[in-house]
């Protein structure tokens, strides 16, 4: 094995003390020199196992090799063959569980910084402007496709099918596009300008974006098919419905779901004086949960001015769901982690505002059905923690609006739409689904992977249907000829 520098090339980050009071992007990205240095750590494996760890199969070896050669444009082209949202994925993918976990360097030293390189290439491409390369197809097919939800799954399906020449319409319930990329992931981690650019890119591809339409309310899926003439529908509505703890005091003022808190902050820009959106300014924030969303909420609360911001989690550091990078950044920004701590009820003041949490310490017992060790309350360890803003980040359930209003669409016991894992096909012919609405809360890249599979399946389905209809048309025409058309005989 050749000698490789054991550590990833560092990516400059803004100083924690400076960044914790503003919304600018934390990680500054590689320079060209650093990117080339990092790309040189890649061994160019005969069998690039890293690529098997990528849900959309980015040709990682090839793009990294191009970066090493300084061919950034070629690298960008290589990534775009498989991934239309590289600037986003390069920032939010949990690479340590995906491509980088497979890197052959990984057992003994740092893996190649694939995520950082992807981000570098995407940013280089944005700065050197080649978005104009993609133009709308010259001839559109006549089978229209409706996409429900403009999050990562929907954007991927739209891109793939538009490039195949299908007229695509994306329906979004909110007033801005991007789904979780817009309302969920904060500005300091994913600048919204990037989401805007990706949406614009799809508009140039000819994708129609329609906002303020709640599928299941404004228009149902059955109406999209029967009345608006869509030949296929993709449902990518995400895991919309926040899970609460169902413990006393949960409806006190100042207690938010992560969805509400993040939507107020990210989509509605509560932090900006230019916007009318209110949110309670925290002094002592407590965020319950330890996944990616919890890290987003706790770091937002710091940026909103919290003097103290806590993560409260009933298991230990080991079991946390957050990406390593975001966890470390939260720690650097001064977040206090209360592991093995289970809230039992919320305490309020005389005006109905939350003032604290009553918690109990836990210890870990046997593994539960999730494979993680079950937290068991320690008797007599109750204590009170002060908090004037509480954010509950315990995950989400699927939003029932589409399943409830779509005839013959099967859901499982959790309310997730049942879809073929290979194709996204649902129990309704012509209706496909992917992303969190199928899997429950997962990641951006998995949603994109599901979107990619569904786009392929929708294309096959529509081609078969077109062939069948053509056959029927020919058969029908032959029947007419056999019967002897008066016009022909006349």
């Amino acid at each position, binding site marked *: 094995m050749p000698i490789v520098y054991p550590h990833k090339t560092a990516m400059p980050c803004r100083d924690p003390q400076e960044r914790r009071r503003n919304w600018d992007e934390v990680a500054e990205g590689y320079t060209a020199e650093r990117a080339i240095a990092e790309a040189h750590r890649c061994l160019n494996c005969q069998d690039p196992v890293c690529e098997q760890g990528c849900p959309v199969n980015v040709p990682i070896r090839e793009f990294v090799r191009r970066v090493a050669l300084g061919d950034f444009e070629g690298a960008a082209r290589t990534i775009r063959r498989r991934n239309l949202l590289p600037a986003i994925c390069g920032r939010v993918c949990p690479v340590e569980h995906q491509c980088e976990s497979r890197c052959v360097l990984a057992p003994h030293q740092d893996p190649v910084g694939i995520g950082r390189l992807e981000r570098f290439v995407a940013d280089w491409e944005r700065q050197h402007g080649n978005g104009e390369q993609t133009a709308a197809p010259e001839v559109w097919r006549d089978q229209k496709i409706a996409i429900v939800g403009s999050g990562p799954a929907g954007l991927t399906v739209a891109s793939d099918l538009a490039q195949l020449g299908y007229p695509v*319409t994306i*329906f979004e*319930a*909110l*007033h801005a596009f991007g789904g979780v990329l817009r309302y969920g992931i904060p500005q300091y981690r994913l600048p919204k300008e990037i989401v805007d650019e990706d949406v614009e890119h799809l508009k140039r591809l000819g994708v*129609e974006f*329609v*906002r*303020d*339409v*709640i599928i299941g*309310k*404004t*228009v*149902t899926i059955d*109406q999209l098919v029967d009345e*608006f003439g869509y030949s296929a529908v993709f449902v990518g509505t995400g895991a*919309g*419905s*926040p899970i*609460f703890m*169902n413990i006393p005091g*949960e*409806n006190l*003022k*100042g207690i*938010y*779901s992560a*969805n*509400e808190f993040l*939507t*107020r902050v990210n989509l*509605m*820009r509560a932090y*900006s004086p*230019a*916007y*009318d*959106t*209110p949110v*309670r300014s925290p002094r002592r924030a407590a965020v319950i949960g330890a996944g990616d969303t919890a890290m987003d909420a706790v770091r937002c609360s710091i940026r909103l001015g919290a003097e103290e911001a806590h993560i409260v989690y009933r298991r230990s550091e080991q079991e946390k769901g957050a990406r390593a990078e975001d966890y470390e950044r939260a720690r650097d920004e001064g977040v206090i982690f209360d592991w093995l701590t289970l809230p039992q009820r919320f305490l309020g003041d005389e*005006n*109905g505002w939350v003032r604290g949490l009553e918690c109990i310490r836990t210890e870990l017992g046997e593994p539960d059905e999730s494979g993680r060790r079950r937290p068991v309350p320690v008797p007599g360890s109750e204590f009170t923690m002060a908090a004037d803003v509480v954010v509950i980040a315990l995950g989400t359930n699927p*939003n*029932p*609006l589409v399943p409830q209003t779509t005839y013959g669409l099967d859901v499982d016991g959790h309310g997730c739409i049942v879809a073929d894992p290979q194709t996204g096909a649902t129990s309704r012919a012509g209706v496909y689904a992917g992303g969190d609405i199928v899997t429950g809360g997962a990641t951006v890249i998995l949603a994109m992977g599901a979107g990619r599979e569904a786009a392929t399946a929708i294309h096959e389905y529509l081609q078969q249907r077109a062939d069948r209809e053509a056959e029927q048309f020919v058969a029908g025409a032959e029947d007419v000829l056999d019967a002897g058309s008066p016009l022909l005989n006349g």
Partner: protein
Amino acid sequence: MDTTARIIDKRDLTDITKLFVVHAPLVARNAAPGQFVILRVTETGERIPISITDFSRAAGTITIVIQEVGRTTALVGALGVGEVFLDFAGPLGLAAPLPSQGHAVLIGGGFGTGAVFPLARELRSRGVRVSSIVGARTRDLVILADLLATESDEVHVCTNDGSLGYRGFVTGRLEELMDAGAGFTHCFAVGPMPMMRAVATTTRRRGLPAMVSLDPLMVDGTGMCGGCRVTVGGKSFFACVDGPFFDAHQVDFDEADARLMTYKEQETLAGELAGLGR
């Protein structure tokens, strides 16, 4: 698909209460009595839920009534015929659970009167007898009694100061009618929180089933944020997707009241900045 929502008619009902007829065919096509829309007027503005007062699928219109009580509603009030809403999304929420027989009493307080009109029309079309009670502080603030009369078997107007109709609260008139043997089987009330609470208390005592339409703070209106949670019968619900109508006798009004006041300080400040000193 066209989602433009253009104002085609506007009427001043009081100094601060305005009625808009909005051409929004996509919203009108699936609208049902009891539902609401969420609208936005500026790029930096809030999303606010507003009850649907009337809808016509044939004309493609949605009618709404706005009371200027804060910054956003003041911005709406300033819009004129021909202008468009930046966002106008709906219909949201569930249709009101209306009966198919009996004698319904509909109670509208203040600008909530608009929201009971589509219920009256639907109830009448189902053959349900409809009595309406309309309440306001004073004569000049009574709105839409004439409109409601077109879909009611009888309309009773109440004012706190007695300047028009019955002198006193809607609940006083409700009890009077019940004492006189009106034989109500169902009650639906929409209005300010104190009025709905009073209706709940009265109807509970008198054993009359009652539903109220809750309008808590909302963000998305599609069940995504849970900001609109209300406690009904000891359980937490999202008003946007489980409501807006709930069993009046089971609603935790103390909590609903408190939650409605969450941003009162910010709203008062924003209202003052918007020139709403009243």
